[in-house]
């Protein structure tokens, strides 16, 4: 069972490491921007370590592949883009490569890629992996773009709240340790979001990028290795995209604060509905027996036995 004290400790560790890295990189001039994606990545890893994540290798489990391969790849890409800004097309290409590689990396060695019961055929494999890559890439690209256009804590807070909801939903869907991992991620993202109010935040788009791929990775392992439903996974993955509504012309009649309030309410309503539904399913399924399906011999077989 998830231990609330351990989870709070992990969130505190994630927040502290994130804040320390942001502050540590503050005086590095151009290098300061690279500190922001690194801060989210290291904060997430520190929280995971505090929760008892002990890798047996690099690729043995889904969580190892996420924390030790996908997250460092995303941090490397965002850090590099923060240090050496590229054209939008080249930046999108780099992110696209990592997003497309993330699906097969996260599912490595599982029945989805190796075949067998519950696995995918060769055609399905290609289609699903491309779709998965796009589902990881779209929020990553669009949220970093939005953060570049509109500085501030809103997008970071939206991904943080979504991570919190994703953690609770994944735990309620039967994969406790992956769900717990989302909570230090939420803390790391909330820390960078709040830091934008305190210190200059040149690397915030990179932090948003890393946060986005971490969240997507957790949803992928929750869906494919746990029992997170596809609908909940998609809704949680899409929730931070509601931030785009702030720029939606029909809402132009609202001034900035009512608009922000409306968006926050919409996002929290969506996240609350997903968590509530997951909790209802959890309660419904706790204690319901699974009926047996074994075929039985006929009554005549028993009457004829040993004759």
């Amino acid at each position, binding site marked *: 069972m998830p231990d609330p004290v351990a989870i709070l400790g992990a969130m505190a560790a994630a927040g502290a490491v994130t804040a320390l890295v942001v502050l540590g990189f503050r005086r590095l001039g151009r290098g300061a921007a690279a500190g922001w994606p690194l801060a989210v990545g290291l904060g997430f890893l520190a929280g995971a370590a505090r929760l008892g994540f002990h890798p047996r290798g690099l690729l043995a489990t889904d969580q190892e592949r996420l924390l030790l391969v996908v997250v460092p790849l995303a941090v490397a890409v965002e850090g590099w883009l923060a240090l050496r800004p590229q054209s939008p097309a080249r930046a999108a290409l780099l992110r696209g490569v990592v997003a497309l590689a993330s699906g097969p990396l996260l599912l490595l060695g599982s029945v989805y890629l190796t075949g067998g019961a519950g696995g995918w055929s060769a055609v399905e494999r290609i289609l699903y992996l491309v779709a998965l890559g796009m589902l990881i890439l779209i929020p990553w690209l669009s949220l970093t773009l939005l953060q570049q256009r509109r500085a501030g804590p809103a997008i970071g807070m939206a991904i943080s709240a979504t991570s919190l909801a994703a953690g609770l939903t994944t735990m309620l869907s039967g994969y406790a340790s992956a769900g717990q991992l989302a909570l230090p991620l939420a803390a790391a993202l909330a820390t960078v979001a709040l830091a934008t109010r305190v210190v200059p935040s040149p690397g915030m788009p990179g932090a948003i990028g890393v946060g986005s791929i971490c969240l997507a990775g957790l949803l992928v392992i929750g869906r494919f290795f746990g*029992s997170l439903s596809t609908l909940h996974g998609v809704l949680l993955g899409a929730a931070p995209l509601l931030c785009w509504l702030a720029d939606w012309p029909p809402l132009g009649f609202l001034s900035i604060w009512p608009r922000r309030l409306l968006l926050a309410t919409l996002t929290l309503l969506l996240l609350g509905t997903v968590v509530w539904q997951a909790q209802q399913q959890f309660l419904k399924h706790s204690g319901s027996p699974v009926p047996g399906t074994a075929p039985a011999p006929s009554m005549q077989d028993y009457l004829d036995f*040993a004759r």
Partner: protein
Amino acid sequence: MRHAMISMVVLALGLVTAARADEYALDPAHAAFDFKIQHLGLSWTSGRFNAVEGAFRIDPKPADCAFAVTMQTESIDSGNKQRDDHLRSPDWFNAKQHPQITFKSTAVKPVEGGYEVTGDFTMHGVTKPVTLVLKGGGSAEFPKGVQRTGFTGSTVLKRSEFGMNTMVGPIGDDVQLSVSFEGIKK
């Protein structure tokens, strides 16, 4: 002389028949692969794997007997869907990464009333030798025309030795496995 020859041939045929190994396919409808694990030191939670297949060979020479069983991890059933979902996740059996639990015998010795079977037990991607005593081996015809035999046995495994370390303490490390199965002669 002719009678003696016929008698010898009949005797030889009988010996060949008696020495022949019998091959059996495991009957999933009459197979129970159950486990039991302690919860908080207070009670035992039990469950089973519903999808099981296998085969075995019973040979007059016990060393030539063989047993092989495969359980589908996804079919775990502890009578609680929520717990089963958690058991299938990477916190426990990691069913998508390790879809099968297998046992293949490597040595069989006769013991009173059955066999002591040692074999490679693979669970959670880890293979370890496991020994259990299978008692039984009687035979029955059921339904008519179908020859059966069956065995029952048990053993204890340490789940942590198979890399399954979740919540060792509150949830016991020792897992009691009990197996009971029938085979249908091929």
